[in-house]
């Protein structure tokens, strides 16, 4: 009988073939990169959890025809250890989509023992399925923000994206980027320094009263995380900084991808609300120094006042979805008392088997 079961190592070639087919890649050529990638991110992840595994749907006749990845994160809520599960990617062979295989995989995943399920890269169909299975929209985080650093270069880059000639227009964007920026290039107060694992762990502990629901990082996990993020590198160079006040006090941190002549994508900005403006100033200054023409991120409650003051515009992003049987956890997220960002999701997890392949 067809059934849903945990992913096994022997399934990896079939899973890679499913994803390659979904992306329109040559399955044989892509497999060499995708199999080890999925082994790293689905089976050998530092927080891989046998109770919340990646799920596959095995059809009697066709074998593995669907997969739903599981990315487990360790969090704490007040002093209680909790498990946050980020499901994705969800890929089903086209012949089996009408049979509801995707819905059954998602239903099985949401029935797992995790305390909270959070998806930060859901397309419209997953959005509908999750809501019908009792999930809900993380409304604020389903909206993106954009801050234009260099208006002339931004306009050229946007036109090039629309025309599909980004590479050929890189020189033009660079020349436009040499025009005066929107704001002074003067460095903000305080100091931004490379973000070390211990500093991020310490910072989040300092923010425990601001964010009762927060990640519970350790050095081994962060080492794995940042190495994996750097290797994915789909959106530019990975940049991570700790921002200190002039007196040396840590105020906040940020992690982002910076694409020269392109977009700087914010993955996480961690700071208490009063300190967000200065940390954001450093982030934008850093992105500008790296050649980005625009900074983008998703809204979080604690970012709203600072982003509002900067008159950031709204941009579409993927759906952010939540599911939990614990209303207190959901209330913490919706009430802005959670540090639950793209760093702890699967937004950045995008395999790239070919140097010039389009990302997902």
């Amino acid at each position: 009988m067809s059934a849903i079961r945990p992913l096994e190592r022997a399934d990896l070639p079939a899973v890679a073939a499913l994803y390659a087919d979904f992306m329109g890649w040559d399955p044989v050529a892509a497999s060499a990169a995708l199999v080890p990638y999925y082994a790293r991110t689905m089976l050998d992840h530092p927080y891989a959890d046998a109770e919340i595994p990646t799920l596959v749907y095995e059809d009697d006749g066709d074998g593995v025809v669907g997969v739903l990845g599981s990315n487990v994160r360790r969090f704490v809520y007040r002093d209680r250890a909790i498990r946050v599960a980020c499901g994705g990617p969800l890929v089903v062979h086209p012949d089996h989509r009408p049979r509801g295989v995707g819905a059954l995989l998602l239903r099985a995943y949401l029935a797992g023992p995790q305390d909270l399920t959070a998806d930060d890269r859901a397309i419209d169909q997953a959005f509908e399925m999750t809501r019908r299975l009792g999930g809900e929209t993380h409304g604020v985080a389903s909206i993106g923000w954009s801050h234009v650093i260099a208006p002339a270069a931004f306009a050229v880059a946007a036109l090039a994206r629309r025309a599909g000639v980004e590479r050929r227009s890189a020189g033009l964007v660079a020349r436009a980027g040499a025009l005066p920026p929107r704001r002074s290039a003067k460095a903000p107060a305080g100091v931004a320094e490379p973000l070390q694992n211990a500093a991020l762990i310490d910072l989040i502990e300092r923010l425990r009263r601001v964010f009762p629901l927060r990640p519970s990082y350790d050095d081994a996990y962060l080492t794995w995380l940042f190495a994996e993020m750097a290797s994915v590198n789909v959106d530019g160079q990975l940049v991570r900084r700790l921002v200190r006040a002039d007196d040396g006090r840590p105020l906040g941190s940020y992690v982002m991808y910076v694409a020269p002549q392109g977009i700087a994508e914010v993955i996480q900005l961690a700071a208490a609300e009063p300190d967000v403006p200065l940390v954001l100033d450093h982030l934008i200054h850093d992105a500008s120094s790296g050649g980005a023409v625009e900074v983008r991120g998703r809204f979080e409650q604690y970012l709203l006042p600072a982003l509002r003051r900067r008159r950031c515009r709204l941009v579409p992003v993927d759906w952010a979805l939540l599911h939990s049987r614990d209303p207190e956890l959901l209330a913490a997220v919706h009430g802005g008392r959670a540090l639950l960002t793209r760093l702890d999701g699967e937004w950045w997890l995008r395999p790239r088997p070919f140097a010039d392949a389009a990302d997902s």
Partner: protein
Amino acid sequence: MTDSAALTSRVAELIEEVLQVEVPDPGTDLVAAGLIDSLVLVSLITEVELEFAIQLPIDEFDLSRFRSAEQIAAVVAELAPDPHVA
């Protein structure tokens, strides 16, 4: 009307209410008729569980037994101690 026929009728009514479609016949294959896709299936599973106070299998959900009102009624009859009082 037998218990089985009454249960099938209840399931057909539920399908019509949830899917907003008319079930031509209790034996109609809803998938083959194009009445069920992924989203509809999710709604139907959830509604059947709520209506009959049962938990349908998670890992071994046999889709081939969930294609008509008659089949769904048979699944409910297996899982519900007394589907008529649920």
